[in-house]
């Protein structure tokens, strides 16, 4: 906010001559000055610098300065070979990156994963970039033909001459992204339906939705995954055992939908009652009112909450390892233990790399949501 000197027009004759106040010192300069403006501030500043130094310097040292960049096996990353203290063992990551990304997906068939990923990225970028034309087509392609194509490509189909690849060979980023993406794509609409149901005027619909949301939300994801993995087979006949990856995906989708439902309910409740009444008074039925008036506004209000749920979901996929699914983090952990690369720094390197991967993905989602909020905010102003 600029200072309010401009409004000072009491003196009529002075008003014409008043100039805007001299440029304030920039905010950065003001903030810097406040760092040393009193003895307490000086002490706090020094303390903060010391903490930053203690945290950053070893990190940079480990990840860059002392890091080993070339090599073919564990020998390169041993202090005895290098003749100096060693930091991150990057050759390990370079060497195992294929395994991190695809797991045990047969090497000859990995192009199928790449093709699927490429299609997905093009469609997602097209659908999400506000400047591109005909984004509706991208959304349609992503939700209708793409899942079929992706399913056929990834699992294979003898009819199409694609060798079947059972899901127990899938792993790494492929599994992490598959679970997260399906979780996001399912939880937004399913969560919306649950949220609407919870606010429905029909008692039975409301009861069903409340029970579903509260039961799923009241159980840890790990418990839900165990139930999906271990208990579901007990109820189903041996002939119709669903794929174990599919079971986990169902569990994750349900869990994310229940959280999403509560986020969206917050948005529905934040809308003034007048919006519902105006829509009703125009003769709009329930679904047109919800789809055209209420949900566009409610969802916009809770974009931060939706993205927060997406980010949690993405990170929570690391829990699937507990029921034997081979996600990205598991691939990293397993690789760190192979004898070829076993060294004191291997697993730390692996975890550092995993952290960077998760951070990059989550940060990208966060930035996109901020940009979208800004765009939607200007649209209706």
């Amino acid at each position, binding site marked *: 906010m600029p200072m309010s000197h401009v409004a000072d027009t009491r003196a009529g004759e002075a008003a014409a001559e008043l100039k805007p106040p001299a440029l304030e010192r920039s905010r950065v300069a003001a903030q810097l000055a406040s760092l040393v403006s009193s003895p307490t501030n000086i002490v706090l500043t020094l303390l903060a610098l010391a903490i930053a130094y203690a945290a950053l310097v070893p990190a940079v040292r480990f990840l860059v300065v002392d890091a080993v960049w070339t090599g073919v096996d564990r020998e390169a990353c041993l202090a005895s070979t290098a003749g100096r203290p060693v930091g991150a063992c990057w050759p390990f990551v370079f060497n195992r990156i294929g395994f991190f990304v695809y797991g045990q997906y047969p090497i000859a068939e990995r192009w199928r994963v790449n093709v699927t990923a490429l299609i997905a990225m093009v469609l997602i970028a097209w659908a999400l970039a506000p400047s591109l034309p005909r984004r509706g087509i991208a959304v349609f392609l992503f939700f209708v033909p793409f899942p079929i194509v992706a399913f056929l490509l990834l699992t294979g189909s003898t009819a199409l001459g694609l060798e079947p690849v059972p899901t127990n060979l899938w792993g790494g980023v492929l599994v992490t992204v598959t679970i997260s993406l399906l979780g996001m794509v399912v939880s937004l609409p399913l969560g919306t339906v649950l949220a609407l149901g919870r606010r429905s005027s029909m008692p039975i619909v409301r009861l069903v939705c409340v029970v579903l949301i509260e039961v799923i939300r009241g159980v840890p994801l790990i418990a839900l995954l165990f139930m999906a993995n271990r208990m579901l087979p007990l109820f189903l006949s041996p002939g119709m055992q669903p794929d174990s990856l599919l079971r986990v995906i169902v569990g994750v989708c349900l869990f994310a939908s229940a959280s999403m439902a509560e986020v969206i309910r917050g948005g529905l409740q934040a809308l*003034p009652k*007048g*919006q519902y*009444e*105006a*829509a*009703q*008074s*125009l*003769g*709009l*039925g329930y679904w*047109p009112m919800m789809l*055209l*008036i209420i949900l*566009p*506004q409610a969802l*916009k209000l809770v974009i931060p909450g939706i993205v927060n749920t997406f980010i949690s979901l993405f990170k929570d996929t690391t829990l699937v390892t507990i029921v034997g699914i081979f996600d990205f983090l598991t691939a990293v952990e397993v690789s760190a233990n192979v004898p070829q690369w076993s060294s004191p720094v291997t697993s730390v390197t692996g975890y550092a790399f995993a952290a960077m991967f998760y951070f990059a993905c989550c940060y990208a989602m966060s930035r996109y949501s901020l940009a979208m909020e800004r765009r939607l905010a200007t*649209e*209706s*102003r």
Partner: protein
Amino acid sequence: MTDTANRGAAAPGADEAVVMSGVHKWFGAFHVLRDINLTVKRGERIVVCGPSGSGKSTLIRCINRLEEHQRGRIVVDGIELTQDVKRIEQIRREVGMVFQQFNLFPHLTVLENCTLAPIWVRKMPRRQAEELALRLLERVRIPEQAQKYPGQLSGGQQQRVAIARSLCMNPKIMLFDEPTSALDPEMVKEVLDTMVSLAKEGMTMLCVTHEMGFARQIADRVIFMDSGQIVEENAPEAFFTNPQQERTKLFLGQILA
């Protein structure tokens, strides 16, 4: 629409826009409407006034079922209001409503606000709906704002858009719920002018307002409510100059003072 001359001449029933008989409503234990009997003829302009909490807003909100009455009958445009959602939507299509807080859709442009219901409820082609909307925006004298969002308009302009939005459904009855109460004083007139011109064209109107000048100018009848009851109803001149009930006198003394 009929004009004043042939009102009351047509067959009974067909001539009545709204019939309320023995209507009661409670909010929890609070008895907000008590035995309301009211008949509004087609083309008639009714102004409803009364102290705050007297049930006047609830009364007109019962007519398009934003509030549900619990006893008695309400017949709107020959259709009785029941739990039947089809009937409720049928009535809402014919009854326009203007709110105190405008309640425009902030995520849609002025034009989209106006075309939404014709397109989705009347199934009108978009082109035709836009022509209709522009015509009505011109009638409320803000065609140049069509591409703006409601948040960019003044209160008076927003309320005129709200009137145009209702008119786009070509309603037979218009309900106004304190349409000028949320406006800055200098914007009241532009909204009232719009309502006056609407009244002069023969629209059936029920209007909750404290704008007594407006009531004098266009109302056929003024209804005074207190504690959920219709205390007095009369032609505006008689209502203002010669109120019959003590409560009416007290109320008029307060607002005209």
